[in-house]
Every structure is written in structure tokens, then in C-alpha cells.
């Protein structure tokens, strides 16, 4: 242990601790901007470039960046001297000097780290008038917008994209005043290998990286008397939406979310978990078929559109390994515009399907040509959790006071298996619940497979089903996915099935979720929320969902049959690395 003095307090810390870590552990706040440390997912951005965390150290002439300097025996640190405070304020003022002054209409208004810093440092005038950099906004993609003029060069996006996701879209380019974080050759996002996972948006401290906003299109559809607007909500929304309204992290708000959607004016409110159950029917059937009939193994789950785009770019030679199943909300979309439209007596051309997703890649996925019929998209719009929260606020809905209501019938029933789709390990656990009961020929005594749960980036488990040892791999985060895919490519993979989710932790930490800073405990609480929903469900396996049974009996026939195949399965496209 090392003895230091911090603001006249004598404290002991471990060797190797930075001044910042020592201060935070002892209740002293030092502001930061570029710094972001989430070591558990390898997201460590300690570039020390912003100089917002400067502190005074006795015996040193210069101020020192608290994030980058390790403490030493006898170090005497002052974090709140006038000199240190003035230096920090000047740093932030210089950031503001060439930052656009359109906070009032910025996507990150009230949720911007630079704005918060300026307020916390009591900056009340623009003392410096800096030279503005001119970079056109990149609005080329369906998922995210890059506005380099708002970039503070913290390079968190670069660390996330390169170190965690291994995609490598971003790099700092140019030098001096022209420095900017950009893509190769400053190409638009559509001409990169971007998967649209949106993790760069999650870590961006300002409005430099934001989601594409589709709320006005959805309002127009709701207000159009000729349209019947059907909404579905992904599992991960119900355990995160409450955060936007100040509710405790991990609170399950399914009932309030549903009644709020009705008050906004959606005509029918359904659950994407129904789509997840449907997905399991098809995926478990496909897995058993591949195992029994010598098909391509391992089979990879295909619910995550960012992961699908990743394999299309990075491993085009392996496009026969993912399951051909569409993702749950796309299955929902196509069934809504066929089966449900008929039941409701609605012309599919007048039906608008809106998906509420924790994800930015789902926006890209919904626009994929192969996921449409007669040029009518199966899912018309995808909104994120944050966009939905904005709509509630816009509509003047007092979210915390809303009553609890249930989803509509026909496509609103869900099993606990479908609910846990929102966390890493959940999709494969749901698939194992159904596959194991089908292979074993009888219902499971215990539906919880604890060995599939956890937070590590790569996990594996073997599950005994009769005389078969079902070998399962799990990866969350695309860098971890790459490791498993390289093993498959090199013929070293021993698994029957692998679940992959692009975002570390799964959909609950998706790029469309409420911002959570660097606190991974938030993600664990959201996961626990999902597992609690599962525990409280009467039906906990997908194939016992009564509405799913009715769907097959009345419309689809057999899982994996001709109609199911036409409507619920898809194909993948080889894409170059760009």
C-alpha cells in the first residue's frame, strides 16, 4: 500500500492507482472528459488528451492529469486549488471555443458530458472565439449520424470500435486544427465495414455521434387516419425505459410502457417477445435438424443484426453457419402483415409496424431489401428506447404515474424464455429449453440453465440432453465473436451452437438504450430485471406459448415447414472489408 495526502486527507491506496482512481475511491470528484474506463469489457480509454482532470501535486511545477498519473509514496495532491480549478475551466472553455453553440436543439441536450462539465465548472460566458472546423454531417446510414464538428477528440469511439468490437471503422486523421476522428478516406458510413452496433454512440460524450431519429415519421403514421399502427417492444426496453424517468435501475416497467404506448395513440400494442418465441420454434427446429442430419455445425444465432453485418463483412466464407432464422422483430413484422392483418381485417398496405428496440442496427436491418414483401417493408420504423422516452415526454405523459396494462391478444403473449433474449446467454438458453425438451421427449424439470449465464465475454457450457452432450459457446462483443469465428474458420470449433450478441452484455447495453456512463453495474441490474420477469412467468418455454401454438395451427403449419420457411427465414450477403 502507498500513503498519500489528498486534499489534506491521509489515505492509503494500492500501488499502481492513478490520482483519479484514488480520488474517486475517497469521495473526491475530479471532472473528466476523454477518460472512460470499463476494463471488464476491455473498453479502456486513458488517452489523457483532454487535460480536464488537471490537479496540483506539491513539489511539481506543472499541473498533472489525474487520469494518467500514478500515485507514489508521500505524494501530496490538491484537487481543488484555485490554480487547478482555473486550469480546468480554461480547458473546457477552449473546448467550447470551437464547439457549435446549438445545444438547445442538439440530440444530446440535457444529456451531454461537455454541457454538464461547462455547467459544473460554472462557465457563464464564451471568453474565447475559436476557429470553427468545417466538416459536413454524415447522414448516409439508416442508423447513426456523425457530426464531426461536435467531436472533442476524446477517441472513445475509436477505442470502442477498434479494441472492443475489432471493427476498426474510426481513426484520428489529419493533424493540428484539422484533426478529426474519421473513417478511412473520410468515406461515408455506408462505405465502411460499420455494423451499426451503436456502441460508439453509447460512449460518445457529446452530440458527435447520434442515432438517426425517426420519431416524426412515427407521429405522422399515428396521426394518419388511414393507417393502422402496430407497435412491438423488445425485451430489453422494459428494464431500461424507467431510467429515462428517474426510476431505479433495472425496474421492470412493462405495464406502464404498454399503457403509455396506447396513450400515445398506437392502435395495437404487442410484444416482440412473441417474435422471440416464434424465433425459438424455428431455431430449435433448425438446430435439431442440423445435429440429426449432419448439417453445418456449429449453428450460430442470427437475432443480432450488427453481428450479422459483422460476419457478412469479416467472414464472408462462413455465411453458411448462422441460422437462417430472421430476428424476432422481423418475424413479428412479417406475421403482423399476414396473419394478424387478416385477423384484424386490415389491409397490409395500410398497416404500419413500428419496433421499439434497444438497438441502432435494427434500423439498418428493417431497411434490408430481403426483409420486405412486394416492396412493403415488414417493419416500417424502428425507434430506440431513447426515442420512445422522448415521445412520452413530447406527449406530456407522466410515465411514473401510468397504470399497468397488458399487451393486446393474438401476438402479445410471451414466455419467460423469450424475455431473456435481451441479455447475453438468453437466446441460447431459450433455444436450449425448447431443444432439450423436444430431444428428451418430455418437459424439463428445471428450465434455468445457470451455466449459460454470466458476464464474461466468451463462455461455454456442456448440457446433457439424453445421451447427447450439447456443447454451447457464447460470445458478446464483436471482438469476442471474432475469436470464436476464427476458431470455426480454422476448423477448431467443437460447439453445436453458438450465441453471438454484438454489444457487450447483450441487447440491454445496446446503442439505443439510455446512456449509462461507465457504470457496468447498470447492465447487470437490467439483466437481473429480465431474469426476474422470466421467473414470474407462468409459461417459461417458447413452445408452450398458446398464441404461438395457435399461429402454427391456424397459419404456419409445421416449424421449419414451407410457409414458415418462406416467411420466417432469410439469406445473407457477402460484403467486402472497407
Amino acid at each position, binding site marked *: 500500500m502507498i500513503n498519500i495526502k489528498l486534499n489534506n486527507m491521509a489515505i492509503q491506496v494500492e500501488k499502481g492507482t492513478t490520482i483519479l482512481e484514488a480520488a474517486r475511491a475517497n469521495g473526491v470528484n475530479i471532472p473528466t472528459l476523454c477518460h472512460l474506463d470499463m476494463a471488464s469489457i476491455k473498453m479502456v480509454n486513458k488517452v489523457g488528451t483532454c487535460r480536464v482532470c488537471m490537479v496540483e501535486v506539491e513539489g511539481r511545477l506543472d499541473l498533472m492529469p489525474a487520469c494518467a498519473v500514478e500515485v507514489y509514496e508521500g505524494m501530496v495532491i490538491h484537487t481543488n486549488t484555485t490554480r487547478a480549478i482555473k486550469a480546468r475551466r480554461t480547458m473546457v472553455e477552449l473546448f467550447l471555443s470551437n464547439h457549435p453553440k446549438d445545444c438547445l436543439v442538439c440530440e444530446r441536450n440535457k444529456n451531454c458530458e461537455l454541457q454538464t462539465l461547462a455547467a459544473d465548472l460554472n462557465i457563464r460566458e464564451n471568453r474565447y472565439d475559436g476557429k470553427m472546423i468545417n466538416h459536413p454531417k454524415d447522414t448516409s446510414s439508416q442508423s447513426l449520424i456523425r457530426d464531426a464538428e461536435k467531436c472533442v477528440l476524446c477517441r472513445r469511439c475509436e477505442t470502442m470500435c477498434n479494441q472492443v468490437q475489432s*471493427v*476498426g471503422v474510426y*481513426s484520428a*486523421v489529419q493533424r493540428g486544427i484539422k484533426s478529426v476522428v474519421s*473513417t*478511412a478516406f473520410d468515406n461515408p458510413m455506408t462505405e465502411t465495414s460499420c455494423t451499426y452496433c451503436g456502441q460508439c454512440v453509447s460512449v460518445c460524450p457529446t452530440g458527435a455521434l447520434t442515432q438517426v431519429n425517426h420519431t416524426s415519421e412515427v407521429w405522422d403514421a399515428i396521426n394518419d387516419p388511414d393507417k393502422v399502427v402496430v407497435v412491438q417492444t423488445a425485451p430489453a426496453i422494459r428494464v431500461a425505459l424507467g431510467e429515462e424517468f428517474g426510476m431505479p435501475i433495472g425496474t421492470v416497467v412493462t405495464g406502464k410502457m404498454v399503457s403509455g404506448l396506447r396513450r400515445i395513440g398506437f392502435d395495437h400494442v404487442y410484444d416482440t417477445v412473441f417474435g422471440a418465441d416464434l424465433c425459438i420454434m424455428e431455431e430449435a427446429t433448425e438446430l435439431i435438424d442440423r445435429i440429426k442430419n449432419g448439417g453445418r455445425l456449429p449453428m450460430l444465432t442470427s437475432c443480432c443484426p450488427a453481428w450479422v453485418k459483422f460476419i457478412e463483412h469479416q467472414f464472408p466464407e462462413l455465411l453458411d453457419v448462422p441460422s437462417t432464422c430472421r430476428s424476432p422483430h422481423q418475424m413479428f413484422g412479417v406475421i403482423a402483415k399476414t396473419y394478424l392483418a387478416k385477423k384484424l381485417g386490415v389491409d397490409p398496405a395500410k398497416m404500419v409496424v413500428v419496433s421499439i428496440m434497444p438497438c441502432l442496427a435494427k434500423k439498418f436491418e428493417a431497411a434490408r431489401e430481403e426483409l420486405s414483401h412486394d416492396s412493403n417493408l415488414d417493419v416500417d420504423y424502428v425507434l430506440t428506447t431513447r426515442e420512445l422516452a422522448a415521445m412520452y415526454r413530447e406527449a406530456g405523459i407522466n410515465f411514473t404515474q401510468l397504470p399497468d396494462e397488458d399487451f393486446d391478444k393474438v401476438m402479445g403473449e410471451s414466455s419467460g424464455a423469450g424475455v431473456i433474449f435481451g441479455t447475453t446467454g438468453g437466446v441460447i438458453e431459450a433455444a436450449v429449453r425448447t431443444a432439450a425438451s423436444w430431444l428428451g421427449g418430455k418437459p424439463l424439470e428445471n428450465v434455468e440453465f445457470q451455466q449459460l449465464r454470466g458476464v464474461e465475454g466468451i463462455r461455454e457450457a456442456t448440457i446433457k440432453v439424453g445421451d447427447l452432450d450439447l456443447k454451447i459457446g457464447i460470445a458478446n462483443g464483436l471482438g469476442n465473436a471474432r475469436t470464436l469465428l476464427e476458431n470455426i474458420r480454422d476448423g477448431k470449433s467443437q460447439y453445436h451452437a453458438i450465441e453471438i450478441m454484438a454489444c457487450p452484455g447483450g441487447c440491454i447495453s445496446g446503442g439505443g438504450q439510455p446512456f449509462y456512463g461507465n457504470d457496468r453495474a447498470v447492465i447487470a441490474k437490467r439483466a437481473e430485471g429480465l431474469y426476474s420477469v422470466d421467473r414470474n412467468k407462468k409459461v417459461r418455454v417458447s413452445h408452450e406459448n398458446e398464441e404461438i401454438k395457435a399461429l402454427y395451427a391456424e397459419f404456419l403449419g409445421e416449424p421449419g415447414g414451407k410457409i414458415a420457411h418462406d416467411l420466417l427465414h432469410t439469406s445473407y450477403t457477402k460484403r467486402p*472489408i*472497407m
Partner: protein
Amino acid sequence: MAQTNSDTTLYAKLDEFIDSLQTKQGALIPVLHKAQEIFSYLPKEVQNHVAHKLEIPSSKVYGVVTFYSYFTMTKKGKYRVSVCMGTPCFVRGADKVLAKFESELKIKAGTTSEDGMYSIDALRCVGACGLAPVVIVNGKVYGRIQDNDVEGVIKDFLAEVEA
């Protein structure tokens, strides 16, 4: 982009260099130096090729190419005139030498003539201060050049290559 036969030779030359390296880690800058020596500039295709060979993202390669002023993405002329603008060359009149080259060859520093014959670059110190001001044309060094020597230098390098 389709590669012509001469391109194929150039790429083979670059690959030979990359394959001879002990490790690919940290090799980006030397590889880019070699690539620019071979191709005379670093177009997108070459940068993508380097990224692929070194197994790093193209964005990283582009980041390094745009950071260092030595690297260029503009195609150079058949005759590449480089005028040193380091401090000793500058105080001995390199700015006038550069201006004279610009007016004689009718192009600005950092550009290439439309017919692809000439390009002019202003360099930082080349480390030959005793010869200041220094001009380098296609690797040949001309020392102690004044603006009224420029016409002679042009005649000399044209004759040199044609002969």
C-alpha cells in the same frame, strides 16, 4: 481497381518488402515509406493493400498517412522536385528558389503538372545543411542553389534522364 501489369510488379515489390519484415507489429510507417518509394504516392488502393497485408484497419493507415506531411496521396510527376525549406536553407534563399521553380514549371508546390511531367514539394530539413539551400530531383542532390541556378538545374535533370 484493376491492376495493370506494371502495377502488379510494383505491388509484388511492396509485398516482398513486407514479407521480409520480422514482425508486422509497428511496421506501418516503414512500410508506408517503402510503398511511397515504390509508387511515388499513396493512393487509396495502396493504403488498402497495406492495411490488408498488415492486418490493420484502413482507417489506421489513412490516419498515419494524413498525419505525416511526408506522405502524400497526390500522384507525383515524372520529375519530382523537392526544395528543402528547413531553417538554414530558408535563410539562404530557399523560398526564392521554390518560387522560381513554381514560375518556371508553372505549378504550385504540393501539386503535379497536368501532363504528369513535374511535381514540386517543399520539404522540411533533409539533414544536408552544409549544402543549403538544397534541392533534390528524383534522388539527385543539388547543393547551394540560388534562384538564378534553377533554369540550369531543370536543363540538367531533363538531360540526365533523357540521356
